[in-house]
């Protein structure tokens, strides 16, 4: 449909999306591994083309313009990583998950008929809802991949069809943070007894999207995903034989995903659809991936060392496309491909005792979907595979020459000879490289 509406409609939609997007979502596993066979194959470039449940994540505005009464799909996904640092393989935690997507029109009548659509994108781990790993400061690892596939992702969304050519929508990324005190105190029995009051507080961040069908064959879209982070703040106190130990552990944004703004354009050439996305990710909001510790012993107050700003904002590019073929009166085949380029989110600052690694990423995806009409419904089976290749990382560590040692240096245990006896695993040179391969096989039905 051609965009014929008054400009204020567009303007107000964009302003609303901007105003409603304060700071902080993303949905980790969907960004790192991909969402469904189609998302994996097209390298995530589906902001204008996804109209099924996957649109809850890609663009709730596209969800609103979906034509099917309802869709349902399930797709297991598994990743294999060859990431290495210091010539040792790095683990890729929880590489297997199950993606569930669904969408449907709310069966209202009257003025709301066919106006509202619900969508859902979910990523479920087989045995656990969440695994939060916070690593020690000296351990080498990729913060881009760490803790991003280790939680249940649940993105429900509502799409509103304002006009045939205009859809807006919003979704929510929901999970919980952990806060509260835990005390170990001497009870009436003389034995240590715990007093624990830990709350898993609800954490919600939003996804806002708009899609405009400028012509029959072209679309533009804007999506804003607030950043997502799980706060962790636990106070522990213990009495050890009359000696009080007090420790506060804090991570303001564990399992962080950055504020992301996606501007996308898609168009059809015959039956071939191609889409290009530009994404801005505000990684600079992330202070660091570590726990901040403050511990008090009698006469001693210990705190974690300050860290330099590790992260920078990134601008990434994605191009994806698909070509359908009708193979018989009731069957069709869709071939898909995609490519994406994303620069490293590390700012390149000289690191002291920390050993964070990352590199520029190039992603290539391929896949296919086979569809068959059965009893008036369309059954789909799809496969997608992608490879994300990470460029090499190298940083030379600077040994401390004299106290006081700058935070950008590493030091040994002897203040008189700080450059000797250094045991930091990243010293003298921190190196890393690798790739991530993801595979998704799924089935779905259009009702």
């Amino acid at each position, binding site marked *: 449909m051609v965009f014929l509406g008054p400009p204020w409609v567009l303007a107000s939609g964009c302003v609303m999306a901007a105003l409603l997007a304060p700071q902080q979502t993303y949905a980790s596993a969907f960004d790192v591994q991909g969402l469904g066979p189609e998302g994996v194959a097209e390298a995530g470039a589906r902001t204008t083309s996804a109209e099924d449940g996957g649109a809850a994540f890609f663009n709730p505005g596209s969800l609103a313009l979906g034509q099917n009464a309802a869709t349902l799909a399930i797709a297991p996904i598994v990743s294999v990583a060859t990431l290495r640092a210091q010539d040792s393989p790095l683990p890729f935690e929880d590489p297997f998950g199950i993606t569930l997507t669904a969408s449907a029109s709310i069966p209202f009548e009257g003025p709301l008929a066919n106006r509202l659509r619900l969508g859902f994108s979910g990523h479920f781990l087989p045995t656990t809802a969440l695994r*939060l790993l916070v690593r*020690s400061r000296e*351990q080498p690892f990729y913060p881009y991949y760490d803790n991003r596939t280790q939680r249940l992702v649940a993105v429900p969304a509502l799409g509103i069809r304002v006009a045939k050519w205009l859809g807006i929508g919003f979704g929510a990324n929901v999970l919980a943070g952990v806060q509260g005190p835990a005390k170990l105190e001497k009870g009436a*029995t003389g034995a240590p007894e715990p007093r624990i*009051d830990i709350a898993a507080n609800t954490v919600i961040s939003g996804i806002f999207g708009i899609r405009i069908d400028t012509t029959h064959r072209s679309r533009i879209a804007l999506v804003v995903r607030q950043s997502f982070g799980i706060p962790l703040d636990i106070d522990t106190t213990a009495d050890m034989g009359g000696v009080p130990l007090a420790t506060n552990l804090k991570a303001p944004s564990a399992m962080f995903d950055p504020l992301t703004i996606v501007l996308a354009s898609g168009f059809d050439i015959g039956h071939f659809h191609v889409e290009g996305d530009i994404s801005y990710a505000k990684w600079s909001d992330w202070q660091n991936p570590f726990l901040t510790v403050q511990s008090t012993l009698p006469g001693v107050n210990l705190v974690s060392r300050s860290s330099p700003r590790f992260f920078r904002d990134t601008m990434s590019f994605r191009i994806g496309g698909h070509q359908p073929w009708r193979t018989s009166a009731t069957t069709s085949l869709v071939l898909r491909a995609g490519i994406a380029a994303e620069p490293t989110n590390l700012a390149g600052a000289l690191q002291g*005792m920390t050993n964070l690694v990352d590199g520029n990423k190039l992603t290539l995806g391929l896949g296919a979907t086979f569809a068959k009409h059965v009893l008036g419904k369309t059954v789909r089976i799809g496969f997608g595979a992608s490879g994300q290749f990470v460029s090499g990382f190298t940083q030379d560590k600077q040994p401390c020459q004299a106290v006081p040692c700058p935070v950008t240096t590493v030091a040994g245990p002897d203040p008189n000879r700080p450059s000797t006896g250094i045991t930091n695993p990243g010293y003298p040179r921190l190196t890393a490289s690798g790739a991530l391969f993801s595979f998704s096989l799924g089935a779905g039905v259009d009702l």
Partner: protein
Amino acid sequence: MRRLAFASVVSSMLCTATIARAGAPARFGHGARSTALVRADVADTDPTNASVQNAAFAAEPGARTRVGYMHGLFDLRVHDQSANVRDVAGIDAALQIGIRLPASFSAGFALAAHLPNTAIAHIGFRPGTEPQFFQYESVLQRATFDLALAARRGPFAVGVGAAFALDMGGTGTTVSLGQDAQGTYADAASDIRLDYRAAPIVGLSLNLGRAAFGTTYRGALAVGLAVDSDIRIALAENPLNGTTSITVRGVSGYDPARFALGARVTVHPRLSLHAAIEFLRYSAAPPPVANVTLDVRLGTSPGRTEVEFVAPRFLDVLIPRIGLEWASPSGRPGDARKNDDRRIRWAARAGYALEPSPVPHQRGFTSYADATSHSFALGAGLGIGRFWGVDLRFDIAGRASVLAARTERKASLALPYSTYDVEGKTFVLATSVEGVFR
């Protein structure tokens, strides 16, 4: 089919609402009608309430969704001092979808979620010797999620489902307090897991017209907590250098296995009598306190390094419930309507339940607090007809419970809290709106 699809999407959303357990809905009811009938509606519950009250009702044909809000105020006292038990409040959301099948069969499913206002879950342990109302604390402060599937043929229906919870565990947290040429530092690494846990739900119903019968079973659920902490201290000239390992193990918010039998009798075309008796197997409950083990290798050592409380030996309880529902001449608000039926419908409800305490007389170090409670409830419902293709109804309910005063006197005055009085009142207000799609 569109309803089914719509339901699948909404159910996906509700599924992800959280982490879950029986919690507040299993105690106060899910939705205002069940609250007003003090959960005596085992034999005639709303289809949207099937996964909480009786899974068999999930087979009712049609598509329904309900959203509501409940708030519980607690005034619980020990020795005339407030026990500082948090209020419980949150959103109740539910969905049910059923379809007709050939040969007089129908089948469907239902979902119900309770989302607390402030937190998805509270994991709380008081010191084992301190008086605590364990039935009103962590067990009520959690999001819950129940799922049921059912099939019906003629008057007979059967349903099965599950209630879900999460355990908190993992390898724990390691804190290092050390020193190098740069000075002192504090560092930590952590590995926390939230693993799934589920309990079965089973329900049966038999509807003979003027009389209906139902029975349900719900397995026990609780949140397991396993937290390990290692603290390593290596500071120059510090007498406390060494390692400390703290292990905390416990089960928070235990909800016992429940078995209920219920009946509904229509004593007049406008008056229904609901009755149920519920068996709660508290005797299998683990201690509602956490056990601690210390391994201290510092410059000092505590006198005792381990505490483990024995099983609390709670008592199984039987809870009788009775409810009355007086409906308008045009029927109850939730009953099916013809397309041209736009009449207002209403219903008035009342209920009473006697809930004995599972806590036996306290004789040792523990001081669990509870007492038999009398619960009274009133409520009303209003059906306003169809708007935009949706039949709308509104319900409201209030429930007050009074704990009978109870005094505990232990054998020895040397025991902690050797004498204490328990009393209290609780108030619950619930509202809900339900839509039935054409």
